[in-house]
């Protein structure tokens, strides 16, 4: 993607233009201001909530759950995906079960998790773990399966041990696709933490937003959404930073080939 300084400026102007238009629409009562409070009010309660520590507290709670589920899924399903890619029998053993469990939309797992774990953190962690499983598992599997056979055979020719081959050849070669799975899962994680907090929780940012709506503190609801957008953006940028530092070699390889 080409980046043009002028274009970024134009886009920012549009974004900034939204604020006064919003303000006018709300103050002029074109839309019911009860549902659509003026931007100034939203921003005011956003800053109030941020500095009083309310929003940071809720976000930290949500982040804790999200991180636990996400990391757990990565720890379990990356090795499983590698095993499935390397050994045909593992794949064949699990194939049917995976194909049967995969179409279950993750939110319907929330009631099951509530039944087993109650309304605590474990419930959210389980839901996130379940929903991150498929992108991570299937991408890792695909990545390992599509490795150039020559690489593996070369390692074998040089008598690299099986463990060495997995760590030094297979894991790096599959890492671009593993990263894709992790990136998709990041977005999924954020969605699921909000869903599970909306359906069954007493705290967390998802609960905060829905609760503000139910108590008609609409400006707080929008402030919560704003903080969620900022959170999502930040996490994605952090991931991209991580991605480019881990996979710098891969980028160089691709651009050389072209």
């Amino acid at each position, binding site marked *: 993607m080409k980046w043009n300084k002028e274009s970024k400026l134009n886009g920012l102007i549009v974004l900034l233009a939204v604020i006064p238009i919003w303000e006018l629409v709300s103050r002029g009562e074109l839309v019911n201001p009860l549902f659509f409070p003026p931007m100034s009010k939203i921003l005011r309660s956003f800053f109030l909530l941020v500095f009083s520590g309310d929003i940071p507290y809720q976000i930290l709670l949500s982040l804790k759950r999200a991180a636990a589920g996400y990391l757990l899924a990565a720890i379990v399903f990356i090795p499983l995906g590698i095993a499935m890619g390397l050994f045909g029998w593992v794949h064949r053993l699990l194939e049917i079960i995976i194909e049967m469990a995969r179409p279950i939309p993750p939110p319907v797992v929330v009631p099951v998790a509530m039944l087993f774990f109650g309304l605590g953190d474990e419930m959210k962690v389980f839901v996130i773990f379940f929903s991150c499983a498929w992108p991570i598992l299937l991408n890792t599997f695909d990545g390992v399966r599509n490795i150039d056979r020559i690489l593996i055979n070369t390692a074998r020719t040089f008598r690299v041990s099986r463990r060495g081959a997995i760590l030094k050849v297979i894991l790096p070669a599959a890492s671009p696709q593993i990263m894709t799975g992790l990136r998709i899962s990041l977005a999924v994680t954020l969605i699921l933490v909000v869903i599970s907090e*909306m359906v069954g929780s007493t705290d967390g940012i998802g609960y905060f937003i829905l609760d503000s709506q139910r108590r008609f503190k609409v400006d707080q609801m929008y402030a919560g959404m704003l903080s969620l957008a900022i959170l999502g953006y930040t996490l994605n940028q952090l991931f991209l930073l991580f991605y480019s530092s881990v996979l710098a070699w891969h980028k160089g390889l691709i651009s050389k080939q072209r």
Partner: protein
Amino acid sequence: MHFAWKEKLNLPGLATLAALLLLWEASTRLSPTLQFYFPPLSQILLSLFDLFLAREVVGHCLTTLGRFLGGYLLSAALAVSCGIALGYFRRTYNLCEVLIEFLRPMPSVAIIPVAILFLGIGDRMVVAVTVYACTWPILINTIDGVRNIDGTLIDTGRTFGLSRWTILRKIALPGASPYILTGLRISLPIGLILVTTSEMVVGGGGLGFFILDEERSLRTSNMYAGIILVALLGYLLNRLFLVFESKAMVWHRGMRAEGPV
């Protein structure tokens, strides 16, 4: 991956599945406490059958399906047309880019409370939320698709004096269609997620509501029956999409196979 059974019957896989199901059935029958949380499979299938006889669940299925289709098709029409325009007219894209990048990272379920405020808790709200969530993948993929069209194609169209509208319709749309289909495929499960979630949050019919309601009434075997139904719905929709995709993209596959690799 698809139609795996046609190639060869996966005996070890089937055996694992059968063993798991047997273990499930046996362990839940032996332990009454476990049975409450996790009823035996036979009982779940029985209640699924009963629910169908009572016709109660058919209505919920149709409600969910209707909401999903409404939201999904609407967002497809909206996002494809906007995406083609944004991909083709770079200046318009530049204006909207920051706005898109600002809205996109927000988890789409966060829009549910806003939708409740504006649209109440009926069908319209569920459809609106689904449209919002499904739009992003389709939009981004369509923009990418139009960008990646070979410039020669568009220049050729211009040389032959095609109007801008014709170029968009006859060159940009088919040229971007592989990307558009990717976006549509990504949106399919997202749409189902959003429909079931908003049904859980606002109630008022649909499979999401049904599942949560049965859990709260502690009729666990009905809850699992509902989950099986949702999974089945997701699976069938995905299959339907694959059929549609292979029909729609016959020309593309042929082109790729013949062209120099």
